[in-house]
């Protein structure tokens, strides 16, 4: 059994799953940047007192699951989402969907994901894939970060669907309900809602760990890392920052380039001259994140390591914070025609 399904490669897994599933269910105009922007995917957070793989907990995007949820909701699409306590039930529901012709998004852990290279298999449970068929004991898999489709045996799929630890997927599957049509008017409105929500998330979340203030908070922390942690551990922390920013799925520059692409595509629906101009600011921000990554690499490779080098790194983040603050303030001042 193989559904008529078109695999789309994307920068990020959740964007990709959202885009592919929505296209499959009839929304031809959706693209990865549109899904990301409508879902208000751009974010920054540094969670203190929490460790991921013994390093700092930093994210450049919104919480897993939200992009799909927000994008569907903004476009008036009903979502079916199920978690399971029983593995048998999880498999049965999946197969019922496939028989009904519906490809299904699944949240999975990557540690036991056999087709991933070993170097990438950490205990990370918020990866997303699409199952679009079954041949003998093998499920056909569309993993959005991969160029080609792949497959997993039923045992392998069960194991990744029931990975344990933080964000345990609990067999979670999801898909948009039924065939839907979305008008340009609806898309326009959804784009506007998505931008407004992203302004809120980056500028107005209380506290100092999220959004622009989170970037500044990180900048202040980095200044102290060398004395507090020692050069080697501080280097490991910076490497973790770079991995979160550049690892599979960000499209480069911690999702800032995807957001720039989104604003350009938004211009086709909202011909406001400021949009492409603001898009350029996000490109600049992405470029600066990459410059900062090069500086960080100098430190974790051991080429740099003085307090001055950490200060430079910290200053890059402060500069980025100002730039992104300006960009989001510009967005909040947009005069919407409709």
């Amino acid at each position, binding site marked *: 059994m193989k559904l008529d399904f078109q695999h789309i490669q994307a*920068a990020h897994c959740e964007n990709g799953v959202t885009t592919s599933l929505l296209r499959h269910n009839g929304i031809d105009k959706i693209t990865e940047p549109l899904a990301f922007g409508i879902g208000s995917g751009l974010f920054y957070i540094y969670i203190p007192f929490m460790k991921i793989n013994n390093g700092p907990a930093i994210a450049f995007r919104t919480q897993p699951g939200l992009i799909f949820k927000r994008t569907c909701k903004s476009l008036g699409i009903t979502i079916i989402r199920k978690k399971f306590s029983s593995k048998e039930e999880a498999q049965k529901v999946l197969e019922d969907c496939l028989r009904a012709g519906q490809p299904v998004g699944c949240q999975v852990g990557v540690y036991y994901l056999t087709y991933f290279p070993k170097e990438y298999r950490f205990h990370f449970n918020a990866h997303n894939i699409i199952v679009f068929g079954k041949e003998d004991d093998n499920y056909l898999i569309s993993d959005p970060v991969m*160029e080609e489709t792949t497959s997993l045996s039923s045992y392998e799929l069960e194991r990744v669907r029931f990975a344990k630890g933080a964000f345990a997927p609990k067999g979670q599957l999801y898909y948009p309900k039924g065939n839907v049509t979305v008008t340009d008017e609806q898309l326009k409105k959804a784009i506007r809602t998505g931008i407004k929500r992203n302004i809120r998330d980056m500028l107005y979340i209380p506290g100092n760990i999220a959004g622009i203030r989170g970037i500044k908070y990180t900048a202040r922390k980095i200044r102290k890392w060398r004395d507090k942690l020692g050069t080697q551990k501080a280097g490991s922390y910076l490497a973790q920052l770079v991995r979160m920013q550049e*690892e599979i799925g960000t499209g480069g520059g911690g999702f800032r380039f995807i957001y720039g692409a989104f604003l350009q595509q938004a211009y086709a629906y909202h011909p406001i001259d400021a949009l492409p101009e603001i898009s350029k600011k996000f490109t600049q921000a992405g470029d600066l994140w990459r410059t900062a990554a090069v500086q960080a690499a100098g430190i974790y490779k051991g080429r740099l390591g003085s307090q001055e080098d950490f200060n430079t790194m910290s200053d890059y983040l402060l500069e980025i914070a100002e730039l992104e603050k300006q960009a989001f303030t510009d967005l909040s001042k947009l005069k919407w025609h409709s």
Partner: protein
Amino acid sequence: MKKNEIPHDPGALSKITKEVCYAVDDSGKYTTELSEGWEVKATALDVAWNDVEDRIATAKQKVLNNEASPLLFFMELKLMDIPIVAAYTGFWKWQVKRHMKPSVFKKMSDKKLQKYAEIFEMSVDDIKNMKHT
């Protein structure tokens, strides 16, 4: 990032796929391009793995010094931490911590060890003898 600035440094991922990058073309329009990877992030990943190797070596030494049970070593070898081990085995976190003590480990039943054996993909004997490949 301009399209012609997209890095093409082969890394671990490029063995199985190239990844999508977003960049602007000469006219300033965003487009996508496949990248083989970036040396800066490949080294970041190397750093993460060096840290893992260090943790495994430290754990091994602790087991040899009889300061910890082999379960600590295998936990590190499998990149896990106590909450993850607890979630997979079904033990409470405090139980897992206890099992990491050599004195408690020696008295553990094979039935309990079997749960660890499953998640570490080892046999009970291999765990007891710290055998691994």
